[in-house]
């Protein structure tokens, strides 16, 4: 479970940023996330939707303990992200569009590394690695250096890295960006499988198609603020525009 309460994250503006057109005069900071509250429950997929620069990545980095909130509170799997950051990281799997892989290691070495960092016992690590490699079709290139793999293969290794310690909570930050259709589909299947396994899943995207295929709960964020936070079904019922894209644009423009 992820619970976000009155979350705000402020960043100090640099001189160059202050000169930008839409920065308020004399402002020395900007709220990338402003007073945001939502919760993600186990066995459900929570989609965080928003245009570029809306604050999606910042929100996910706060959940993943990479950033500290300026105010508010986040709890992940029952642990506070500030006071119990280490515990949070043990229960979380984080996947981004950038694969975050070490090019000079092989997939086997990469997964072993992250498994050991998560304190997995060798026997369990071997079993889990074997299962994931079979499931994702990594076995055939498990001994090849990651730098020599295609982007689809790399993404599979990223998924394995995210899942190796069987985390309760999964955070996906635009996981399909830049991927081909087949690989993107396999990511979405994985996300569905995580839901089926009772995990808490939050993923950010700006692709409406993914939202419609995956979401149980939906939040729209724009300029750091939540414009919508309810179930996906409720969103569809309340739609005034003809399509999801149009409805999203309408809500953003009205804000």
């Amino acid at each position, binding site marked *: 479970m992820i619970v976000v309460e009155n979350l705000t994250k402020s*960043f*100090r503006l640099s001189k160059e940023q202050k000169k930008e057109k839409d920065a308020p005069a004399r402002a020395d900071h900007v709220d990338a996330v402003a007073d945001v509250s939502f919760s993600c429950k186990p066995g459900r997929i929570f989609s965080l939707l928003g245009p570029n620069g809306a604050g999606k990545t910042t929100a996910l*980095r706060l959940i*993943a*303990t*990479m*950033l*500290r909130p300026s105010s508010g509170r986040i709890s992940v799997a029952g642990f506070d992200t500030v006071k119990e950051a*280490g515990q949070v*990281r*043990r229960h*979380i799997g*984080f996947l*981004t569009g*950038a*694969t*975050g*892989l*070490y*090019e*000079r*290691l092989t997939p086997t*070495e990469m997964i072993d*590394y*992250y498994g*050991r*960092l*998560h*304190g997995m016992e060798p026997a369990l690590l071997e079993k889990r690695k074997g299962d994931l490699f079979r499931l994702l079709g990594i076995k055939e290139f498990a001994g090849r250096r990651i730098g020599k793999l295609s982007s689809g293969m790399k993404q599979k290794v990223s998924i394995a*890295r995210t899942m190796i310690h069987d985390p309760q909570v999964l955070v996906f930050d635009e996981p399909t960006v830049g991927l081909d259709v087949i690989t993107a589909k396999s990511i979405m299947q994985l996300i569905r499988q995580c839901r089926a396994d009772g995990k808490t899943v939050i993923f950010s995207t700006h692709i409406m198609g993914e939202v419609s295929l995956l979401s149980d709960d939906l939040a729209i964020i724009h300029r750091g603020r939540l414009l919508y936070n309810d179930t996906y079904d409720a969103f569809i019922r309340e739609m005034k525009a003809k399509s999801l894209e149009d409805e999203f644009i309408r809500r953003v423009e009205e804000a």
Partner: protein
Amino acid sequence: MKLLTIIFRKELKDMLRDRRTLFFMIIMPFLVIFLIFNLSMRLGRDMEKRAQEKELQVAVFSAQPLPAFIKLLQTKEKVKIDTRVSRTEINQAVNDGRLDFAISFPENFSENIDREGTNEVPVYYKASTSENEQALGRIHKVLEEYGKQLLNLRLEKKNLAAAFVEPLRIDDRDVSSVREKIGQRLGGMFPYFFVIFCFLGAMYPAIDLAAGEKERGTMETLLVSPATRLQIVVGKFLVVTVSGIFTALTSVLWLYLVFRQSKTVPAEVLSGILKVIEWKSLLLLFSMIIPLCAFFAAILLSASVFSKSYKEAQSIITPLNFMVLIPVLIGIFPGIKLNAATALIPILNISLATKEIIAGTISPLLMVEIYLVLVVLAALGLIFCTRWFNREAVIFRGV
């Protein structure tokens, strides 16, 4: 501790697979040392040999014939006497290379000799031709011998012994031991190698392990792992330090091997050096490399953590390369000695201590002071690096 070990081992494995790092750790020290000792010393030696063996084109001008001088010149040196050039053409002939040297005895040379006077004898040559600059000594030798002959004639005429013109003969007696002499010469050169190679060996791993990780997107996934920021920083710091130490040791090994193979350094000189430098001195020298590399690792890693990208890290770190050389160079200046004050200045203290360790004159107290200074600076650097690593504005700069 367990997580730290896991991070260290993985970073070490990753680093050893980076061709650029391996080049700087192993190949570059060899190339630099080989080029310095073999090529440049051989070039210098060949040039000197050419200068010594070259047949010199020499013109001698005098109002009266000087058969004694001409005979001496032709007997003692490999020369070809040129009689075609006139006095008025001397400058031109030397400038355009028709003559290597022109010796112009003054018009009243013989009269001056008879009057027991002194003659100023201009020797024309072109210093910008390096061979001739080296060959000048050959002409001076002949002239000095001729001068001695003339002096002996004067002394014979006056029935005086040769000692008459030499009331004082200077007898320099160097009381420094062979070891101290070697310490002074080798000790000036040694720090160049291991200080510079410590730095270069640590440089690329530091850039790769922080700025490179940010650029490749692996930093985020590492930050989401259970490892704390401190464990991540220390793991990387240890790998960068090890890389610097390994490169410094490799450079010393290459130095020894190139020396052994080199024909420019006689084998008996090399074995003399090795006899004089005790294993205890070598251990002391190598022990200084450890805190020095730790100090460099902390600085380099901090600069790399701050950088947005590999390229930015390189542009910040490359000027540091030259700054590291300055204290090493200062250590070579005469009059700069290792004392309680200079022992406080990092890198300079190592440069000065190296000479004294090889010479066997190092003070244990100063040695302790040097270790303390370097260890404290390395620790402060590591604390600074960790604080930097904890700053969101730094770690996510450019991400």
